[in-house]
């Protein structure tokens, strides 16, 4: 039953990340961090289940997920820099130009 605890950790990560997105009102960077936490939870699950089923394909997936997360954060950070250059802030309230 030990692995249950680890799954509990991953569930906790997901919930915390979701709550973080809900309560965070302003800061884009924290939103991105929450997304990172979601990726982490997914990776954790991959590894737990690959151990349980003795199947290494899940661990290979972790590599892919990590790469995707790194790529995503690289792009997002670049966009933040761009936004900061434009508005001198990374406040989400400033990004409401699509309102009709």
């Amino acid at each position, binding site marked *: 039953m030990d692995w249950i605890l680890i799954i509990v950790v991953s*569930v906790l990560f*997901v*919930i915390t*990340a*979701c*709550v973080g*997105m*809900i309560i*965070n*009102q*302003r800061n*884009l960077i924290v*939103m991105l961090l929450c997304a990172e936490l979601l990726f982490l939870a997914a990776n954790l699950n991959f590894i737990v289940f690959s151990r349980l089923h003795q199947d290494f394909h899940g661990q290979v997936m972790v590599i892919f997920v990590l790469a995707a997360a790194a790529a995503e954060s690289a792009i997002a950070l670049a966009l933040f820099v761009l936004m900061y250059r434009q508005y001198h802030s990374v406040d*989400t*309230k400033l*990004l*409401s*130009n*699509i*309102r*009709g």
Partner: protein
Amino acid sequence: MEMQAFLPYTVLLSLLLPLFSGVSIGLFCQREITAVRISVGVMLLSTVAALVSLVLFYLGNAAFYDVFLFSWITIGDFSCDMGLWIDGLSVVMLFMVSLISVLVHWYSIAYMQDDSGFIRFFSLISLFTFAMMQLVMTNNLLGLFFGWEGVSLFSYLLIGFHFAKDSASAANLKAFLMNRFGDMAFCLGIALLIVSVGSPQYRELFSRMPDLVPETLLIPGLGVVSTVFLTGLLLFIGAMTKSAQMPLHMWLPDSMEGPTPVSALIHAATMVTAGVFLLCRFADLIVLSPILMNCIAFVGASGALWLGILALFEFDIKRIIAYSTLSQLGYMTLAVGVGAFNLAIFHLLLHAIYKALLFLAAGSVIHALAHQQDIRQMGGLWSKMPITAICFLFGALSLSGIPPFSGFYSKDLILFVAAKQAVSLQAGWYIYGCALLGFLITPLYIFRVFWVVFLGRPRYVTRTPVYESPMQIVGPLMILGVLCLLSGYVLLPFFAGASPFFQFPLLSPALQPLQQKVIDVVAHGLFLHAIFGLGLYFALFGIIVSWLRYSTPHYASQWMTTHVWWLSWPFVNRYGFDWCLENIIVPFFRVSASVCSQYGEQVMIDQTIESRVAGRIQGISHWFSRIQTSYLNRYFAVMSLAIMIMIAGSLMGYNIV
């Protein structure tokens, strides 16, 4: 490896090169010199590839090659495989199209150089060439339809090339809409063929064609009709519009609004011959229905005579040549109708050459006289433009059927076959009479142009002195002039000899001796045969009459229109076809369109749907749009909440996702 293994590649090269050049010029080319280099160079390559394919096919033994390229559509049992159908007919057409196209490309460099749409023009004629080649080379009905519509489209774009001109945009609309009528029939025809045979592939179609004979269709209001007759009739109506046969010919004279090279390429050599090509391609089908063959011969012969006469009452040089094209297309259709498919294709090839020559020579004159097209404003150009004049004379002699120029060979044989068949056909003597009188009319109108334009005193008014056109214009003319002189004699054995280039099915067993007679006539010398026939004398008589009538200052038909107006009235009004179109058919569609617009659009859509339904929806969506705050954090929050609800649900045991 056999040499014929290369045949699909050469054909494909020839087919795809114009597409490449058209697309690349149209999309990417910025400079005129680049456009010229690409299009002319690529067209030249394509012509060489077509020539290689022609030679390879001739050296091979197979009757046809069915080359599979890719599978296009598969729906249930129905499947359509795109590919190439390489037989004698298609390679000959391929070579003809690419040859005329390359000459027209070359000619257009000088002719179009002052035009602002220069690059667009080259792109369009390259794409047109591709569409025509696709029409010729495809191996299934859908590919044929694709090419058929392609030539319609590019012809539309090219006729309306000077789209700012009102007459040009009216002319291209007229051509396009009339072609739509024929395309509808054509579409129904191929649909019927696909339904009755079950496959759009030529291979299947031609092998199962005889099985269709006993099949009939029950049409409400008409009763039981033979499938073969109905299919052939629909295809023939499609061919009639494309090849501008008698009741559906009105678009062709008007389409002379396009630039002259376009007229030479599209309205003399390629697109208008697509209908004749179609009839020959489906020769297996139409020979099964003798009534249909008789109809085809009747329509063709009527066009050959009556539309030729109209050329005598025109003053626009291009329109005169357009009417002569109509008349010659009538001869081709007549040849199809009497079962001489070989001769139809033979005449098609020779006609493509000499008619392109006539158009290009006319274009040279028009170019030199600063876009003057009225023959009353020309005259005395023989000394100013000798090369153009000689080339035009060659074309005119060909058209009139004077030996040894090319038109003589095909026209004389067609007349011979028509005479032999006159006994067995319904209205056979009318058909023969039309064909024979056409021999008289043809030199009358074309030499009228020649005498009026090139002889007599100059009547034109130009700011600059008139000179012979540059090499880029007279070069193609000279090539075509030489071809005019030689092609008939050289090609004769391949089309009417003992071992013809391609075989067509015979109309009936009664035709077997007829074909043998044609072979015998050719073997004994066609000129000898012509001396004892009527056609040659009619043609010579026509030239003499036109010399007496038109070489004098009374160059036009004013005498007839003023003194015996009641006789010339139907011709001046062009038999009332245009009147009928403008006063009956077009108003009918105008009225029905306005009714649809009034009740269908304004009442149904604007007042009912737009104001009631759309207004209500707008109100609701306005209310809903308040949810869209456009704040990123809110959206994230909603997404997260949804995820949490899903997780919570699955923990509780409800399978939400």
